[in-house]
């Protein structure tokens, strides 16, 4: 059946000034000072514009935003459980499609965006996210990654880095490096097994134009797309709250995080530093790493070096634990 769903056409912004002035994520929330995910939300909402529906699985961006029956969203939002962001989004998309088919909905097809934390994406929310990407729903799934369960008091998540001190991985005599595991590599986990997937990209809050255009591009496909965004958390990572943007920038400059787009099986890396800074530059301002000894930092550097080599070769970043 051929149906005109009235999908939106979002043009890319040519420069920073061309980014939409109108705010869709407005003041009135109660996130921490310097909150990376809040800035992330603001930029995503701005890029997507008014014809948008957000699905907000439980996490910081639900609890600290949708408080006391008030929300900072100038667009529609529905809360989802931390488990089921992808599933609720699938149902919404299916509803708009069938209502359009039956002529009961004649408006523009909304941008349907899941804003899930790392737990709601690759931990407890993994199944719902994966099934949504598999079923070819026209939904953009965004993982705002603050590398922990921050809302509940900074517990380890599958994206917490090696060596991170969290309330479930405290350093001690027996376990000096705190978190002993290396993180799940989110983009590759997503790209690896979803044939309907159209587009995957990574970005950070320190790259607003890049972020804006990746959101707009992701929303232009008639199928599922995925964005992984680094959103530093001053409370969880224990750094001065004025440095949130700086932390995201340093993550890219040290190779801890890489910016890329993936489309039709091809990786396109951007913002690749000519010379990478040592990982200690990134770690030294973060209290979550302050207990680490030289040998642990060396292990982390080895992990990052392996990533950097793949970026230079323009291929997928590996997810193996360094020996």
């Amino acid at each position: 059946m051929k149906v005109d769903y009235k999908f939106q056409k979002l043009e890319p912004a040519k420069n920073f000034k061309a980014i939409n002035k109108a705010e869709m994520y407005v003041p009135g929330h109660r996130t921490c000072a310097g909150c990376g995910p809040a800035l992330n939300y603001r930029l995503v909402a701005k890029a997507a514009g008014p014809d948008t529906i957000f699905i907000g699985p439980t996490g910081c961006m639900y609890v600290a935003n949708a408080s006391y029956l008030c929300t900072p969203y100038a667009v529609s939002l529905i809360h989802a459980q931390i488990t089921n962001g992808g599933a609720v989004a699938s149902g919404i998309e299916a509803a708009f499609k069938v209502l359009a088919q039956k002529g009961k909905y004649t408006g523009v097809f909304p941008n349907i965006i899941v804003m899930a934390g790392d737990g709601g994406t690759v931990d407890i929310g993994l199944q719902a996210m994966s099934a949504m990407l598999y079923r070819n729903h026209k939904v953009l799934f965004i993982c705002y990654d603050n590398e922990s369960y921050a809302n509940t008091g900074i517990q380890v998540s599958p994206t917490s880095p090696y060596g991170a001190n969290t309330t479930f991985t405290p350093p001690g005599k027996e376990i000096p490096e705190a978190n002993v595991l290396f993180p799940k590599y989110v983009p590759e986990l997503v790209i690896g097994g979803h044939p309907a997937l159209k587009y995957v990209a990574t970005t950070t809050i320190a790259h607003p134009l890049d972020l804006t255009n990746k959101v707009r591009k992701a929303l232009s496909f008639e199928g599922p797309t995925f964005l992984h965004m680094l959103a530093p958390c001053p409370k969880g990572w224990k750094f001065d709250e004025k440095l949130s943007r700086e932390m995201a920038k340093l993550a890219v400059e040290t190779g801890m995080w890489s910016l890329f787009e993936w489309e039709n099986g091809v990786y396109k890396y951007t913002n690749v530093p000519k010379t990478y800074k040592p990982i200690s530059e990134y770690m030294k301002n973060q209290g979550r790493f302050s207990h680490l000894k030289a040998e642990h930092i060396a292990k982390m550097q080895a992990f990052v070096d392996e990533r950097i080599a793949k970026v230079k070769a323009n291929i997928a970043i590996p997810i193996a634990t360094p020996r």
Partner: protein
Amino acid sequence: MAQEKMLTGCSAAATGAKLAEVEVICSYPIRPYTAIMMELAKMVANGELKAEFVHGEGEHAQVSIVLGASAAGARAYTGSSGVGVTYAMEVYSPMSGGRYPVQMAIADRALDPPGDFGSEHTDAMSTRGQGWLLGWARTPQEVLDNTLIGYRIGEDQKVMLPQMTCQDGYFLSHIADKVNVPELAQAREFLPPFKSPHPLSVACPVSHSPQIRPDQGAPMDAQRAAVYTDVPKIIEKATAEYNKIMGRNYDPFLEKYKMDDAEIAFFIQGAHANTCMKEIDKMRKQGVKVGMIRPRWIIPWPTQYLAEACAGLKALGVIETSTCYGGSMRGGNLAPEVRASLYDLDDRPVVTSFMGGLGGETIWPEEFHSMAKVLTQAAKDKRASQYTYWVGFEGK
């Protein structure tokens, strides 16, 4: 013209959903309810029913997907059985709290330990307290009818609550019976299109289920409770209209069989009532004044109607068909509710219970006779010797 067809309970549910013109359907396989989804999949594939058929990745996802669909304004339908019903548990309270009137078809199946296929009502009974309307059918006909009646009640703007329309696995879901299938025009006359009062929208932005403060929680609970005060009236009206349009004869809450002069009676839900009625006929010929009461809705619980129906009875035997280990009646879920409902009667019957129809076991005809003997003795003694009797375990 309405047509007569031989349909299983699963086919009857699928036919009901088609007549309700459901818009988003979400499936996941588990026996025995699966056959409902198999039929709907065919209807969508061959264009008989215009709907989005979504393959959920589990029951938790099924319920989540229809939640999203209902929030966006579509009439949504899903279903499950057994441990599938309990796997979705997290999403039941957001559904009723968010006031999304989806429908879930349940073909009851015993919960694990492992691999018991047969009917038992513990699956859906364990969702009581989650805010859903919960009803049981006795025949494939009633399965079809309850599908339409369920949506009509749930989507009433004063109600806006999800419904579970239940039927016994296998005994109903897989055995065919004559079903009068209404015309689409009749179904439309009874069930108007679903209208969500505040759907997710780009034209008029809304927030669904933002977080609340503790002091806002109780008022919202009170609101949901208040709805249930009004639901019985809405069920009465909807059932009366359904009876009129379709030519049926349902009591809104309680099917009463030979209760006019009954001295003892069974309280039983679901398909085992069919055997019960047959055996009552036989016992009546032997001069036993026995009757039967069958609830059509467990939530809302028909407290006053039950009290009225039991006035004059000497003994009532509740046949449980579900388990509640360690509960006040030492066995099932229904007897405590029945006892509480009759507490205010000046002259109330003895109430005891029977554990039967568990783990897929049928309740055999002769067992109704032995249960009736226990009730006759209890009526004479004005008390029962046990809170509950395990049917088929006598003398073991």
